[in-house]
């Protein structure tokens, strides 16, 4: 008898309050019906085992769904996740990188800042991903329970039931022409990081020296920040254009001739601007050359020669990679 009570309790405690009593009464009389007049404990157990796990029995009594996100909204749920998560990661990384560069004072060595930032970024990404996952899931559980209860079809990314009309919006992407999303995001991050570095060059690029084993300390900036700033009215529009091209790429998702042309024009002009800035004789911090000459015990002209050589190498490398990049995009668009 005790077992029957326990069984009935195990079933009904999982059910909504209002149906509990009725089901308990019915279940108890049914179990008793199944048992002979003076039953043993063994017979009792036999009967209960034919009824099976109380949790399962309770589940079949309930008519609310036993899942959080059902097949109707699953597709939309996954699609939303895939859309949002890359952006969340990108923004998290970007915010931290920009913050670190802006706040960089040169008192700590670059390496230790980079290592520390790396750890913080990973931790932030995990934190933000958990948050994103949680909130999107909550919203979709809500949609599952309330919004979709009436309609039979599943929702698509248009937020409506599927019709053949939607096929008109489907973009069949040729694999050869496709621009990977990762490439676009990387391009965006790259541009922003360079702009921030450019504006903060006097805090970051310079002559570093280890003093009394206390890590690297910046002795003097390598570049003339005023000269850099005087070019800012040209550099900034180009950075914005780069971002614009990235967004254009994101939208098109494949190389088209129009995209190749716009991209090539912007790239070529950027290289020209870069060459002008890099070859400006006042760009280098004047105080640095005599300082390096005495420190390294070489004459002034060798230092000058070294810098000239370095600048032109960098420019040459940039020109070559830009040409390769433009040719590559042209090849893909023609494919």
């Amino acid at each position: 008898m005790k077992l029957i009570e326990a069984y009935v309790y195990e079933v009904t405690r999982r059910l909504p309050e209002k149906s509990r009593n009725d089901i308990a009464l019915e279940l108890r009389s049914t179990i008793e019906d199944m048992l002979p007049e003076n039953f043993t404990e063994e017979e009792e157990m036999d009967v209960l085992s034919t009824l099976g796990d109380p949790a399962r029995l309770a589940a079949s009594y309930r008519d609310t769904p036993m899942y959080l996100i059902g097949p109707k909204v699953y597709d939309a749920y996954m699609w939303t996740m895939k859309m949002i998560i890359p952006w969340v990661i990108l923004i998290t990384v970007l915010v931290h990188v920009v913050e670190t560069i802006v706040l960089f004072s040169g008192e700590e060595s670059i390496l230790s800042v980079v290592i520390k930032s790396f750890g913080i970024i990973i931790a932030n990404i995990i934190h933000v991903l958990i948050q994103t996952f949680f909130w999107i899931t909550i919203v979709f559980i809500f949609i599952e329970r309330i919004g979709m209860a009436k309609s039979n079809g599943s929702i698509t990314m248009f937020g409506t039931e599927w019709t053949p009309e939607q096929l008109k919006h489907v973009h069949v992407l040729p694999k050869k022409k496709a621009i990977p999303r990762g490439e676009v995001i990387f391009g965006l991050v790259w541009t922003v990081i360079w702009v921030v570095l450019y504006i903060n060059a006097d805090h970051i690029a310079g002559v570093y020296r280890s003093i009394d084993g206390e890590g690297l300390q910046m002795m003097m900036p390598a570049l003339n920040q005023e000269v850099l700033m005087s070019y800012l009215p040209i550099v900034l529009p180009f950075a914005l254009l780069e971002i614009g091209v990235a967004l254009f790429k994101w939208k098109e998702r494949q190389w088209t001739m129009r995209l190749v042309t716009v991209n090539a024009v912007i790239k070529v002009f950027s290289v020209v601007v870069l060459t002008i800035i890099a070859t400006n004789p006042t760009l280098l911090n004047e105080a640095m050359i005599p300082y390096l000459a005495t420190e390294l015990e070489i004459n002034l002209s060798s230092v000058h020669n070294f810098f000239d050589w370095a600048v032109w190498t960098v420019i040459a490398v940039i020109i070559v990679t830009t040409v390769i990049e433009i040719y590559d995009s042209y090849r893909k668009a023609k494919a």
Partner: protein
Amino acid sequence: MGPLLETFTTELRRGTLTLAVLSQLRTPQYGYSLVQRLERAGVAIEQSTLYPLLRRLEKQELLTSSWDTTESRPRKYYVISEYGSEIYEQLKKEWETMTFELKTLLKGDENDETD
């Protein structure tokens, strides 16, 4: 092979369950008496499926129920409603066409094999 076959069989049987239950409720039955009637006819049914099914059919207004407290233990009796009878008749017709169609299909299969 065993468990897979069992899954298919359970699936097949589940579809026919409502029909089997409705057919036996023209006279009022309580849970266990219904189980016995079905078992006597050779319809094996999991009891943990049957009792929730009865409640669901009642909620869908195919059945009505009443408690009988005159006996030593109270029993809940279920009987088919008017709406339930209508559904039952239509469902029965569906079943008959379906078995007829399937029979033809399965027969065709046998003929193919002997050809």
